[in-house]
C-alpha cells in the first residue's frame, strides 16, 4: 500500500515542473551482508571487488537512478548478527534491496524478516538448496551444492571410474556434497565403497586417507569448507593416494585463488564447478582486466567475485526496468524471469524455483606459464538444481 501511495506521489511529482530535480536525486540503496573481518574476510573482499568492477563497467547509476551499496560486516556464520544487521539495513538505512549473504545459517535467519518486510533479497552465495524456499523474496544467483556435486559423480561413472570413496567435512554442505555425488555416481553404475565424514577441526587427515587407501577405490571425492582443511585434504591425497593411482574428484576445492597454497600437489585434480577462471568469454576477460587494473596484479576472481558481479547485474536490470520505487513483488516477478550473460557463461533464473540455472564445467588443474589453473574439458549446459526435482514443493 505504502509503495502504491509512493507511486501516486511520484506521478504527482512528475506532473509538476520539479520532476527533473526529483528524478536526479533518486537513489536505490542496496544492503550487502558479508564477512569483512575474521577468518572469512576474503568473501567480503571478493564481493566488494566484484561489485566495484561491475560499477566501473556500468556506472553507479541506472537511468539517472543512483545505486548506493551499503556494506555490513556479519563476521562468520552468525545468524543473530545477520538478522540484526538486516533489520537495521531495512529500518534505519531504508535499503530497497538486500544482497550478499555467504553462509546458510545467515540466510535462514533473515528469511522470515524479509518476508515480513517484503524485501527483495539477492543471494550472492549461500548454497544450501533449500534456502530459496524459505521466503518468496529470495532470488539466488550463486549455485547450489547438488548442482555441482552431481555432475562430478556423473562424469566419474562415465569415465572409467568404477568405485569411489567420499570423504567430506562433517557439516551441512558436506552432507549435500556426499549425497549428490553418491546418487549421481551410483545412477551411472558406480559403487561407493565408503562414506567418511571428517570433523571440521581435523588437522591431520592421514588416518582417514589411510582408510581410503585400504578401500582401494578408483577415485576419492572430497568436500571441504575451504581454508586449512581443504589444503590438508589435497596435500594428504597427493602424498598418500595419488602415488597409488587413486584420482581426486572435487568441486570448489581447486579454485585458482587457492591453488598457490596447495601447490603442485593439486595437479591433475578433476572438479566440477559453475565458474572456471580461464573460461573464454569477453565478460570474463574484461573482469580479469578490470580487477588487475583496480586491485593490482595479484587480484584473482573466484566464485564470490563473479556471483556478486552477477547479483549487481540482476539488481541493475530490475532498477532499470522498474525504477526506484518498484514494489517488492514486482521486483521478484521481474527477477525470476531473468536471463543474462555472466563471466561464468550464460545464466538464467528458474521462474518456478527462483534459483539459478547455469553451465557446469568439468575441469582439471594444469600448470600454464608457471601458474596453476583450472582448464575446462567439458561443459554441461544449463543445469538446474537437482535437489528441487527430488524435493517437490508440497502445497
Amino acid at each position, binding site marked *: 500500500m505504502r509503495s502504491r501511495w509512493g507511486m501516486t506521489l511520484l506521478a504527482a511529482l512528475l506532473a509538476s515542473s520539479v520532476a527533473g530535480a526529483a528524478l536526479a536525486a533518486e537513489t536505490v540503496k542496496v544492503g550487502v551482508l558479508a564477512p569483512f573481518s*575474521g*577468518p*572469512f*574476510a*576474503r568473501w567480503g573482499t571478493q564481493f566488494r571487488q566484484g561489485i566495484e568492477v561491475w560499477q566501473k563497467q556500468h556506472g553507479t547509476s541506472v537511468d539517472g537512478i543512483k545505486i548506493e551499496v551499503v556494506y555490513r560486516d556479519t563476521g562468520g556464520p552468525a545468524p543473530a548478527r545477520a538478522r540484526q544487521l538486516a533489520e537495521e539495513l531495512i529500518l534505519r538505512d531504508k535499503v530497497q534491496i538486500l544482497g550478499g549473504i555467504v553462509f546458510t545459517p545467515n540466510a535462514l535467519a533473515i528469511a522470515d524478516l524479509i518476508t515480513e518486510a517484503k524485501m527483495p533479497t539477492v543471494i550472492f552465495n549461500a548454497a544450501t538448496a533449500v534456502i530459496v524456499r524459505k521466503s518468496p523474496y529470495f532470488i539466488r544467483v550463486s549455485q547450489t551444492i547438488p548442482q555441482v556435486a552431481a555432475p562430478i559423480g556423473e562424469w566419474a561413472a562415465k569415465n572409467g571410474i568404477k568405485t569411489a570413496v567420499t570423504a567430506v567435512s*562433517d557439516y551441512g554442505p558436506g552432507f549435500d556434497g556426499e549425497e549428490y555425488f553418491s546418487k549421481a555416481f551410483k545412477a551411472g553404475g558406480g559403487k561407493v565403497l565408503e562414506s*567418511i*565424514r*571428517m*570433523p571440521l*577441526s*581435523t*588437522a*591431520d587427515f*592421514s*588416518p*582417514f586417507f*589411510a*582408510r581410503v*587407501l*585400504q578401500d582401494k577405490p578408483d577415485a576419492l571425492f572430497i568436500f571441504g569448507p575451504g*581454508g*586449512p582443511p581443504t*589444503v*590438508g585434504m589435497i*596435500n594428504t591425497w597427493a*602424498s*598418500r593416494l595419488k*602415488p597409488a593411482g587413486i584420482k581426486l574428484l572435487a568441486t570448489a576445492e581447486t579454485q585458482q585463488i587457492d591453488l*598457490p*597454497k*596447495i*601447490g603442485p600437489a593439486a595437479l591433475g585434480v578433476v572438479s566440477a564447478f559453475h565458474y572456471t577462471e580461464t573460461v573464454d568469454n569477453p565478460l570474463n576477460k574484461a573482469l580479469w582486466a578490470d580487477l588487475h587494473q583496480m586491485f593490482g596484479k595479484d587480484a584473482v576472481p573466484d566464485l564470490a567475485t563473479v556471483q556478486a558481479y552477477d547479483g549487481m547485474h540482476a539488481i541493475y536490470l530490475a532498477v532499470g526496468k522498474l525504477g526506484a520505487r518498484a514494489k517488492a513483488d514486482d521486483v521478484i516477478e521481474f527477477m525470476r524471469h531473468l536471463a543474462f550473460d555472466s563471466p561464468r557463461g550464460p545464466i538464467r533464473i528458474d521462474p518456478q524455483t527462483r534459483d539459478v540455472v547455469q553451465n557446469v564445467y568439468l575441469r582439471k588443474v594444469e600448470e600454464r606459464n608457471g601458474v596453476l589453473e583450472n582448464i575446462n574439458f567439458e561443459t554441461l549446459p544449463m543445469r538446474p538444481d537437482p535437489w528441487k526435482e527430488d524435493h517437490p514443493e508440497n502445497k
Partner: protein
Amino acid sequence: MAFATVLLDGVSYGMVLFIISVGLTVTMGLMRVVNLAHGAFAMVGGYLAVILVRAGVPFFAAALLAAAAVGVLGAAAELTIYRPLYRKGELAQALMTFGLVFVVIAALTMIFGPEIKPLPMPGFLGGLVDIGLRPYPAYRLFLIALGLALAALLWWTIDGSLYGARLRAAVDNPRMARALGMDVGRLFTLTFGAGCALAAFGAAVGAQLLPLEPFYALRYLVLFLVVVGVGGLGNFRGSFVAALVLGILDTAGKYLLPAAAAYLFYGIVLVLLLWRPNGLLPSRSAA
C-alpha cells in the same frame, strides 16, 4: 601393514604437537602463568620462516632463524608483558594473554591477509621413502626423527646440564631457589624465550600438517593445552608421552572408527584425565 602406517602417522603427528607444546608446559608449570598466547608465538615463527624462505633463505636456516627471532621476542615479552602478570590471578592472566592472541591475529591479518601462507619444504622431503612395507612420505619420517632428536636434546638439557638443575630447582621451590642466590627472574626469561623459540620452530617444520594462517593461534590452542594438561603441568617428559599417546590414539581412532572421529579425541582426553587428573606424569619436577 596399514597398522604400521597408522602408527607412524600417529607418532609424527604427536611429534609436531610435542615440539610446539613443550614450551607451554614449561611456562605453565614453571611460571604458573596461564599462557594462552603460546600459539601466537608459534604462528609468528611460522610467518617469519615464510618471509625468510621467500627471500631465498634455505628452509632449515629459515626455521632456525625464525626460532631464534621468536626466542628473543618471547624473552622481551616475558620481561614486559608477562612479568607483571605473575602476581595477578589466573583470570587476569587468561584475559591478558588471550587479548595478546587477538592483537597478533589482527596484526598478521593486516600485514599478510587472512589467507593461508604456504611454506614450501625442501624437495627431498616431498617424496616417498620405501620403508620396507610400502612407500611412506619422507616428511613424516623427518618429523619423527626431528621430534626424537629434540626430545633427546631437551632431556639432556634438563637432566644433565647446570641450567637444567637450576630450572628443576626453580620449579620445585622458587622461593628456596631465590634464597640460595639463583637469579630466578633471568632463568624465567631465558626459559620463556626458549619455549617460544621451540614453538616457532615447531610451527615452521609442522606447517604441512598445521597450515599457517592468522587464526592458527586459536585454531590449535586447544590441542596445545590438551597436551600440556594431559602430560602434567611443568613436566616435559609428560608432554612427550602425552603428545605421543594422543597422536597415536587419535590417529588410530580416526582410522578404525571414522564415524566417532568428532568426539573421539575429546573422549580420550576425558578418560586420561579421569584416570590421572594431574596428568600422565605428575611428578613435582620439571624433568
